[in-house]
């Protein structure tokens, strides 16, 4: 028979297990987790910027295309005060080529042209987003930017590339991201460019201070 002492200790153990589990799950949901850095080629702005934005994006999502313009503007206006890192969150159930696009964008990034390739993907998303077969635009954009397409193809099939994408997706799932674009501005969540600009206003003083350095 279980002694009274052991029963009390078991109750304490269960209490600790339950409360620590809830605490971790809440920390994940409220983004109190350590920041996992994005690769350098997906990060723009100074490392010591007082405001840091992580954007979870999908190249086939129209709202992300709209947000990309806003991010460009913010980077121009607050150049010294803002750092933006892109993370991939392809919504595969509705955008069949998003994962490919993300992989190619990363591979373009390894050749130093992530942002330019991303812009072309956003601009042409209506052309390749609904394609029935692997869109030829991925290659066209690469050639337009003078990238080595053979290298890009090899890179897009590299397990390391897919692993990096998988980690972004898992991290987003863990943080409860379920729509794109989702931003974390110094840890504060914003969904869509409207909320992004609202949040950015709250950091206006910091952004201006950083920009004037």
């Amino acid at each position, binding site marked *: 028979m279980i002694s009274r002492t052991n029963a009390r*200790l078991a109750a304490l153990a269960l209490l*600790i297990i339950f409360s*620590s589990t809830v605490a*971790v799950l809440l920390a994940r949901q409220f983004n109190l987790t*350590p920041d*996992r850095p994005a690769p350098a080629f997906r990060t723009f702005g100074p490392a010591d910027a007082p405001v840091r934005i992580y954007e979870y994006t999908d190249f086939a999502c129209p709202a992300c295309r709209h947000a990309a313009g806003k991010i460009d503007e913010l980077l121009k206006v607050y150049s010294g005060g803002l750092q933006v890192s892109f993370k991939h969150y392809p919504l595969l159930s509705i955008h069949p080529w998003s994962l490919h696009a993300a992989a190619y964008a990363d591979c373009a990034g390894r050749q130093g042209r992530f942002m330019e390739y991303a812009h072309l993907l956003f601009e042409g998303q209506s052309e390749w987003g609904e394609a029935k077969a692997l869109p030829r635009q991925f290659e066209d954009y690469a050639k337009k930017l003078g990238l080595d397409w053979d290298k890009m193809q090899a890179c897009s099939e590299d397990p390391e590339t897919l692993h990096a994408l998988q*980690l972004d997706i898992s991290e987003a799932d*863990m943080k409860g991201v379920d729509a794109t674009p989702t931003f974390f501005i110094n840890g504060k969540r914003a969904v869509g460019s409207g909320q992004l600009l609202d949040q950015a206003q709250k950091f206006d003083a910091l952004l201006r201070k950083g920009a004037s350095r």
Partner: protein
Amino acid sequence: MNPDKPVMARLGLLARLAVGGLFVYAGLMKTLAPAEEFGYAIEGYKVLNSQLSLYAAYVLPWLELWSGLMLCAGIFTRLNALFAGALLVLFEGLLGQALLRGLPVTSCGCFGSSGGNSLAREFFQNLFFLALAWLAYKKGSYGSADRYVEGL
């Protein structure tokens, strides 16, 4: 506490807190990161395939966290010290075989994405913590919940 050996009792408490703290930190860093990240690190040791590595990555950090917390609080102290010691022996086995095989493991995966030491350094550090786990097992009851509940 045995009045003639207060130093050992306090050392036991410190050992318990050190091993427990290490496990809490390691568990937290990994439970607050995507499991795939730790799974990938486990895969690097070339002992489990990717699917099993992922299952291990889902379970192991929680066990570390819970066991570490219970060790700190002194709940079922001997059992948790034994469990922590067994996990450390398992980690030593993984690290040792990776060292012997010269596997190109760049990050031990011990503390999630916050980085870790080199395999050799981690191996020797774990030996130290293994000794502390043994001390916590033998002399870790001072200031423990076990003692408190027994006295109720």
